[in-house]
């Protein structure tokens, strides 16, 4: 427990991580409340202001895209979608990863050996290709998107949780709890979870940007979120095509994605340093 206090202190003295946390909070707030400040819908086409640059005076703070849609609204919606997918898919990853890892670590023996071999084989393969493949094969369904991304991101989490579970199993206090007659559920809740939670939090924080990047990647290629919905990936793809004439269409969503990913990574790194978590060998 005392290591928790030390961790909080270490985190607080890390300016990069704190800044990052603040930035993330601001972005999330913007995506949730931002649209209130600007009356433009993300789908409304404003033919009088096609591809106009950002200005504070006009109705379009971030400018408009090729179809006259307000970029402020579009970018915020894109961010909302990316964040939502990121969190949802991360949740899926986490569930699969924690479940798999805890199981492997707890059962041990040959089952564990087999389960780890599976993970090793999967880790070696370019899973992004399989995600693309699944998307091709199963159609461009957004639920498929969540699931397939989540199915790809659970590997590291599983490894971490397995390592933690294995080392925990051998610690005396678990044996003591078992001997004293505590039920398995109680053991898990009161003993296993508090000890596993540190690394889990860290890698969860690092999984989210990874997944957001995956989703953006797929959307960018046209395999993820479909028109007319926007995700940061689709916005960047559209912007890339307009680079010479209207660079802000690229710069604004691109910049937002970059900042978001950077902040998430910095926060994850900061948490990792604070909780002193090491990658399993």
């Amino acid at each position, binding site marked *: 427990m005392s290591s928790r206090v030390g961790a909080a202190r270490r985190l607080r003295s890390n300016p990069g991580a704190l800044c990052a946390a603040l930035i993330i909070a601001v972005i999330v707030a913007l995506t949730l409340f931002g649209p209130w400040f600007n009356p433009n819908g993300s789908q409304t086409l404003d033919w009088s202001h096609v591809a106009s640059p950002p200005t504070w005076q006009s109705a379009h703070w971030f400018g408009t895209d090729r179809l006259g849609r307000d970029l402020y609204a579009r970018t915020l919606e894109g961010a909302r979608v990316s964040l939502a997918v990121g969190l949802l898919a991360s949740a899926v990853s986490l569930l699969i990863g924690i479940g798999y890892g805890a199981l492997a670590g707890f059962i041990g023996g040959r089952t564990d050996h087999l389960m780890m071999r599976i993970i090793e084989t999967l880790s070696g393969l370019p899973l992004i*290709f399989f995600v693309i493949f699944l998307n091709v094969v199963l159609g461009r369904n957004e639920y498929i998107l969540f699931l397939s991304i989540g199915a790809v991101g659970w590997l590291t989490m599983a490894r971490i949780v397995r390592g933690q579970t294995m080392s925990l199993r051998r610690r005396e206090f678990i044996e003591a709890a078992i001997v004293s007659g505590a039920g398995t559920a109680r053991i898990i809740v009161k003993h296993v979870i508090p000890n596993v939670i540190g690394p889990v939090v860290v890698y969860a924080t690092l999984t989210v940007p990874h997944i957001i990047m995956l989703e953006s990647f797929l959307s960018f290629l046209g395999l993820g979120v479909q028109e007319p919905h926007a995700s940061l990936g689709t916005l*960047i793809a559209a912007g890339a095509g307009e680079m010479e004439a209207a660079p802000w269409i690229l710069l604004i969503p691109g910049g937002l994605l970059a900042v978001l990913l950077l902040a998430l990574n910095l926060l994850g790194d900061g948490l990792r340093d604070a909780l002193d978590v090491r990658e399993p060998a």
Partner: protein
Amino acid sequence: MLRYFLTRLAGAVPTLFVIVTITFFLVRAAPGGPFDQEQTLPPQIMANLQTAYGLDQPIWTQYARYLRALAHGDFGPSFKYKDFSVTELIVQGFPVTLEIGATAMVLALLLGVPIGTFAALHRNSAADYAAMSLAVVGIAIPSFVVLPFLGLVFGIYVHWLPVAGWEPRSMRYLVLPIAALTLPPLGVIARLTRAGMLEVLRSDFLRTAAAKGLPLRIMIWRHALRPALLPVASYLAPAVASIMTGSLVVESIAGLPGIGRYMVQGALNRDYTLVLGMVIIYSTLLIVMGLFVDLLYAWLDPRVRLHP
């Protein structure tokens, strides 16, 4: 040594086999076919197309035919690029992808290792923080964001380099794509090298090297570098995977005719054989990389015994 190599190679075949099989059946099991995108064709033409591409055979026959063709290096015809077989597309596109991918990998190593070493030697200095901050930036920001930005700065505002397009034997078109591909692994390698080097710098044998009066550069080059690079060696296969992934997007944006772009096109067009072929190529590449990394490990640390 040769025995180990061959054993591992033999072991890789089943994995590849599994990959091919799974992807094959997944593809065939999917609803819709490669011709669904086009306007609804009259049933007679549809039937003819099916026969021409062998799609009317029972699935096991198709599978067997595919495997047999594969053994001869024939990936089948592309369903969309009617005049080309997948093999031809691979042969056309692979050199381009290899060129930018290999260059990116080599650059990432040639730049990342010295940067990481420098950061470790000047720990906690301003240069160290700067280098590691840049590394995080490289890691966090995906190549499909970096490349357009680079294109914007260097292509449009400064007019130094072309933003997209490709000419054979022309380096100018490759500079920005290679840069975008290099940055993420560069960041990771710099961080890993720094961490590895910091560990090694504290070790006893480096103290002995200092006590022997060896100059710093010999200490680093001969004594510290190899053990410090072990984490980097572990990262090589994921690095190649990341470059492969990046090449998909970079080739698409920059209009480079590599297999990455074909893969993306194939995915968008539901061109089964093309996508299948690409998946096989990429997986094979990764497996070979894994083999190579094992050998590299043994060289970096002679205590490692290669177990078949």
